[in-house]
């Protein structure tokens, strides 16, 4: 399983904003465990909210990493807020928009808006608000050694950037 919860980056403005999408597919195993048929209740496959948070963390994390040319190891450090108003079912598209609030040597804080796009109509409606904080881990863990290579921004992320047309 590949731990990449984004399909494409639509916009990336250095240090300011990142927009990415994730298409929700019935082929994804995780949807069928969440939630399976029980008794008289039919199955209700929806994208788990935890993975939507992960999708926003990846969107915002790319924005934070890109702002410093992916030289920092950017780690999700805090979920300031995560409120959901809808559920993402198969056949819809999740659109993550991350905006930078603060960025310095120690880390960053970001505001996230998540929308759900109905593939039949193209109409977008609110899905969630997710505000996150990231740590530049090498700057904040005095005395703790991390590997030299950037284990956060792996080939999976670089491939995503490349296929989204972002250098």
């Amino acid at each position: 399983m590949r731990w990449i919860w984004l399909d494409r980056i639509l916009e990336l403005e250095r240090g300011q904003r990142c927009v990415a999408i994730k298409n929700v597919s019935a082929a994804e195993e995780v949807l069928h465990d969440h939630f399976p048929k029980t008794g008289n209740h039919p199955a209700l496959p929806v994208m788990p909210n935890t993975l939507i948070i992960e999708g926003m963390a990846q969107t915002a994390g790319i924005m934070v990493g890109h702002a410093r040319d992916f030289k920092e190891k950017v780690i999700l450090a805090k979920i300031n807020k995560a409120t959901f108003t809808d559920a993402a079912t198969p056949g819809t598209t999740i659109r993550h928009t991350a905006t930078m609030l603060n960025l310095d040597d120690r880390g960053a804080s970001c505001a996230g808006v998540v929308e759900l796009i109905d593939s039949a109509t193209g109409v977008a409606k609110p899905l969630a608000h997710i505000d996150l904080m990231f740590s530049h881990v090498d700057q904040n863990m005095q005395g703790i050694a991390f590997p030299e290579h950037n284990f956060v921004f792996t080939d999976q992320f670089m491939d995503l950037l490349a296929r989204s047309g972002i250098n």
Partner: protein
Amino acid sequence: MALSEQEIFEQVQTVLVDALGVDEDEVTPEAKLDADLGAESIDYLDIAFRLEKQFNIKIGESEMFDQSVLNDPQYVQDGVVTPAGIAELEAKMPHADLSQWKQDPQVEKLGDVFDVQMLCKFVQSKLGE
């Protein structure tokens, strides 16, 4: 117009309610950030970012809570801050009241010094710059 002490306290209170998810009445001047309000290390960066926005100030790294002394072996011996280390902390954090902590200057007890009152004093000093 300069903010009064009460206005600074109320705005710091709002920042802490938002950053730590605590109730307003928990944020008293004497409340300790970690022991009483549950702040963890990343929360200090969150609080710094929010204070910057709330008061339109710029807070440098280690300015609010200095970590460099505690991580410097010349200032810490067997978990206790040396007299030179204490002097360094007093110079770097004039907004912190270290008088009680100095009686037993253990590194792990320094967190007790970081209370709401101290944050208000810090903001006040930044606004005066």
